[in-house]
């Protein structure tokens, strides 16, 4: 009998748990530890943030799903990993603290034979003074945040309807943020809503980003083959901004937010301030604050985790200049350094470096998008590691690892630009691979599969993905046939 422990129930962890349960006999246990009672389809939080969907449309309780599938569930947060066990047992263990209200404050040590760390991001609002729902900006990172964002947005719209001009700023709250696509989506959904409410002419809408160029999206931009010409995601994205009359401030590191102003530094080192009446800023992500100890209780956190809090895996972490980065630097198996029964997937693994060219202002401020590793790649990583573990359990510890490098896999990114079955729109992009490989492709990616399109069909795709992935996450009949 083998015990498999999965930390985190986001796209990556939940996918891994469902596949493990499908692949393993009932004599083996699969247990998920998540501080949240609910699963959240985060891409649709954008629509909650503009009032097109309610919280109930994007979350559902995990416990009934796990009970039906025979997966153990602890509503708790992991606080420490003991990969070599402790003085009582050499078997690996994880210390957890319950967040479930009826057991709040209780702790437990769970043993494992195989461990997947899929703990997702810590939302680091504290990185920028005044940022976050407890400060002066809204967020769409959780369903509850998105509900609040919509409430604040509606207050702004009410002022616009009363004839008061308003400035709305949407973007990235720090120079090292990732998930630019979410801010991009929210920008154009806000624009769509303002137009629907008939108040767009009184609103100034500004996209404030750490990207050095529009269309970077944290993946160094893309080159598209369009109508027989190669064009860039920068021009393609810029076209949408120009059409919708959205202003853009590029290469910005937000330093401070007050009730009325956002202070930021640009790549050229200049300092600026923009007044705001409404702001939604995405925070930078960090790893969850997990500690690691050896069997004697010595702190080995630095061996397992990068300073950012993300777990070190089979990547090439050697520091080197941008020009020397290669696709081979990126992890393939996601096995933790030094432990062949521990893996980190999704946002939890430490990327070897950014994908976009890293830039610093003359003041030494890093202004460089962090690499995205959410959505499609995140699900693929979860499934891949689940298959590796199932192979090991069924065929012995020498079974080879499955691989899923972000420098080989593709991704679709459908950025909503407004809802409505006949009036909706989205910027729909596909890229192959996610991490550019300049040794295989002159433009870094396969131009036959790397495309960008804007139109109503993009909205239909995004809506279809919403329902498909919630169906899949609920493990309904045939869920495994829906690709990650």
């Amino acid at each position, binding site marked *: 009998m083998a015990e498999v422990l999965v930390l985190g129930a986001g796209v990556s962890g939940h996918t891994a748990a469902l596949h493990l349960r499908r692949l393993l006999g009932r004599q083996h246990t699969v247990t998920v530890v998540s501080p949240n009672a609910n699963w959240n389809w985060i891409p649709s939080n954008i629509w909650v943030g503009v009032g097109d969907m309610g919280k109930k449309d994007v979350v559902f309780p995990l416990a009934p799903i796990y009970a039906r599938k025979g997966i153990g569930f602890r509503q708790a947060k992991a606080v420490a990993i003991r990969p070599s066990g402790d003085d009582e047992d050499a078997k690996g263990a994880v210390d957890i603290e319950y967040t479930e209200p009826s057991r709040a404050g209780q702790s437990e040590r769970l043993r494992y034979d195989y461990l997947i760390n899929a703990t997702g991001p810590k939302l680091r609002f504290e990185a920028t003074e005044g940022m976050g729902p407890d400060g002066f900006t809204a967020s769409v990172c959780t369903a509850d945040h998105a509900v609040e964002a919509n409430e604040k947005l509606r207050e702004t719209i009410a002022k616009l309807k009363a004839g008061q001009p308003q400035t709305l700023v949407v973007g990235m709250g720090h120079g090292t943020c990732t998930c630019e696509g979410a801010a991009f989506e929210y920008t154009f959904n806000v624009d769509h809503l303002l137009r629907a409410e008939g108040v767009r002419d009184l609103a100034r809408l*500004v996209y404030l980003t750490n990207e*050095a*160029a*529009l269309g970077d999206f944290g993946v160094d931009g893309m080159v598209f083959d369009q109508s027989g010409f190669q064009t*860039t995601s*920068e*021009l393609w994205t*810029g*076209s949408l*901004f*120009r*059409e919708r009359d959205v*202003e*853009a*401030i*590029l*290469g910005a590191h937000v330093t401070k937010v007050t009730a009325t102003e956002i202070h930021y530094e*640009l790549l050229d080192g*200049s300092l*600026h301030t*923009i007044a705001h009446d409404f702001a939604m800023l995405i925070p930078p992500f960090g790893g969850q604050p997990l500690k690691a100890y050896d069997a004697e209780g010595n702190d080995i956190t630095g061996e397992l985790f990068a300073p950012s809090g993300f777990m070190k895996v089979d990547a090439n972490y050697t520091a080197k200049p941008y020009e020397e980065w290669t696709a081979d630097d990126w992890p393939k198996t996601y096995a933790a350094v030094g432990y062949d029964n521990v893996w980190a997937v999704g946002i939890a693994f430490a990327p070897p470096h950014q994908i976009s060219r890293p830039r610093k202002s003359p003041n030494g401020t890093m202004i460089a998008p962090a690499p995205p590793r959410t959505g499609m790649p995140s699900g*693929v990583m979860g499934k891949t590691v689940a298959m590796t573990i199932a192979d090991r359990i069924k065929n012995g510890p020498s079974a080879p690892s499955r691989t*899923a490098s972000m420098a*080989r*896999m*593709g*991704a*679709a990114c459908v950025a909503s630009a407004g809802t409505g079955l*006949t*009036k909706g*729109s989205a910027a*729909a992009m*596909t890229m*192959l*691979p996610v991490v550019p490989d300049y040794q295989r492709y002159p433009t870094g990616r396969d131009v036959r*599969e790397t*495309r960008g*399109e*804007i*139109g*109503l*069909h*993009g909205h*239909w*795709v995004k809506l*279809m993905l919403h329902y498909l992935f919630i169906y899949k996450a609920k493990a309904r009949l045939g869920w495994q046939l829906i*690709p*990650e």
Partner: protein
Amino acid sequence: MSQLSMSAPTPGAEPIADLSKAPLPTARTLRVRRNVALQFFRFLSFNSRIMRMVVKGHK
């Protein structure tokens, strides 16, 4: 090298990206983006591309 430059900031002014070089869609392009029949074919095409990528890139 950025194709859409930031406007030269003057003291006290906000440095807004100059989007005047970005291609502006024509009225015909905007109509095509909203035409239900044409968009249905784009919908099928986009989904087939996602599936191709799943087959080619998720191995």
